[in-house]
């Protein structure tokens, strides 16, 4: 293996880690602001101009807070759980092309850590592993509510894994490759994938909400019990890791859906790169937007939606796609 390649990869990894950890922080700022504006409030205003430094204040608070490991918890598992969430979120990012490749001083940089040929499969699989974070965290916490929320979360994640997989099957059948780069390039000549596969897009989006645990499906945290679900016993930076994991997941999902269904970075021009960032921003905004607009659904409604509506739809979608491709 070339040294240059090694160095390049390490630089990419560090960049992704830093950028998305920072984005998670800035994401909370935007989340608060957007939610506030939608509810006719101002949001954070006091720290820095327009409250922009609130992110730093929160970060300092998280880092310097006392690290509490309550009695009765299963220590090692309790400690490893938040790391699983954050780590898997970032590991999943390895196969996501964040920008089209560009040149710096004659050196071509591909802003993807590794363009493996099973890209999307890898991303989804690693994201799915991420659900061990909430599950183990909740089980190890020695807290009834955390346990309940972990169980509920596990049920939701597993059910919606099915939807994610099935909904993606139809587009993948059309492209014939798992690589996200190929999926992106497929849309250069033709239309965006959403034109061919609108149903798959909607299903994937819905599943995305479940997998990231965002509001219409915000079941992993028990807002209605006024506690934070599986994270109830966590404090300080351990909780912060869960948090970073959730936000990183949101960003990566936004990237995935933009690349899979909305043309990605197109032909790789500068315009395409900005278009990709624009799409990602829109989907991130969409996550916040729905949080302001929609109520949470009950767990049983969620299961009902998954197994009785979305899964049959996904299967029908695959069958129809198959028939159309055959003839």
């Amino acid at each position, binding site marked *: 293996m070339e040294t240059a390649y090694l160095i390049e990869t390490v630089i990419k990894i560090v960049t992704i880690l830093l950028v998305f950890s920072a984005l998670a922080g800035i994401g909370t700022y935007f989340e608060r602001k957007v939610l506030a*504006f939608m509810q006719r*409030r101002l949001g954070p205003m006091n720290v820095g101009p327009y409250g922009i430094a609130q992110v730093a204040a929160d970060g300092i608070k998280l880092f310097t807070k006392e690290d509490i490991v309550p009695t009765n918890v299963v220590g090692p598992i309790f400690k490893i759980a938040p790391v699983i969430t954050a780590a898997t979120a970032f590991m999943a990012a390895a196969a996501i092309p964040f920008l089209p490749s560009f040149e710096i001083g004659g050196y071509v940089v591909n802003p993807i850590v590794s363009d493996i040929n099973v890209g999307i499969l890898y991303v989804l699989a690693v994201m799915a592993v991420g659900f061990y974070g909430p599950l183990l965290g909740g089980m190890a916490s020695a807290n009834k509510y955390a346990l309940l929320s972990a169980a509920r979360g596990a049920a939701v994640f597993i059910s919606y894994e099915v939807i994610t997989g099935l909904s993606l099957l139809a587009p993948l059948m059309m492209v014939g490759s798992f690589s996200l780069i190929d999926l992106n390039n497929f849309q250069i000549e033709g239309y965006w994938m959403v034109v061919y596969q609108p149903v798959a897009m909607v299903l994937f989006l819905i599943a995305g909400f479940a997998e990231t645990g965002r509001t219409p499906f915000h079941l992993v945290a028990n807002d209605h019990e006024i506690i934070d679900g599986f994270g109830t016993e966590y404090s300080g930076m351990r909780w912060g890791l869960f948090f970073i994991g959730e936000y990183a997941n949101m960003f990566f999902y936004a990237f995935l859906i933009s690349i899979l269904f909305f043309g990605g970075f197109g032909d790789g021009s500068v315009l395409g790169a900005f278009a990709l960032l624009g799409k990602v921003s829109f989907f991130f905004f969409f996550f916040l*937007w729905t949080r302001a607009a*929609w109520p949470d659904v009950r767990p049983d409604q969620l299961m009902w939606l998954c197994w009785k509506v979305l899964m049959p739809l996904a299967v029908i979608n695959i069958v129809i796609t198959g028939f159309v491709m055959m003839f």
Partner: protein
Amino acid sequence: MSKLPSLEDFKDRNVVEGSAYYDVDQREAPTTGMEKFKQVVNRTFRFELFIGLWVVLREMIKFDIHTVSYPAEKLPIGPRYRAVHEMQRLWESGTERCIGCGLCEKICISDCIRMDTRIDENSRKEVTEYTINLGRCIFCGYCAEVCPELAIVHGGRYENVSEQRAHYTDFNDMLTPMDMAISGKVAEYPGFGAVTPHEDERIKTTPLAY
């Protein structure tokens, strides 16, 4: 309902047909499978979810912010709000209005007014000590109500915080500053304990023929 219900209508809590209260839009929940299916299809294709999205987006674009940035701005409070007391002075002369009658001390139900008086050189009663322990005061307003001189009234200062209980008794804090009294800037207080505007009409002549 043809006309708008009046306040009287609302006071009638007897909910019957035609009263001001009516049931909100309650629909029958679907029971059979087919009805449930229809409801789902209906909801999906009428895009009800997007109405919610539009409403919040519209509010964001309108940017009609209702936040009161509290310590910097404050909402006005009602004139009859009962917050920290104010001890009034007479206009121009600036003499304290309190005549030391002791009624407020007597009536205070949480026993937090303490006062001491003496007879001064001109044989007039003079108040030497007057404290209200605001840490115990329940802001019932009896003291302001009973005061014959409109000397003690309730002000609008509702933010009380202190590191020491002793600070909650500071009389000088409540006393109208002297310079305000002399320059005639004492606001005749419209709040609790003050004379109500239509007091003149309510005065009845005392029947002398008892």
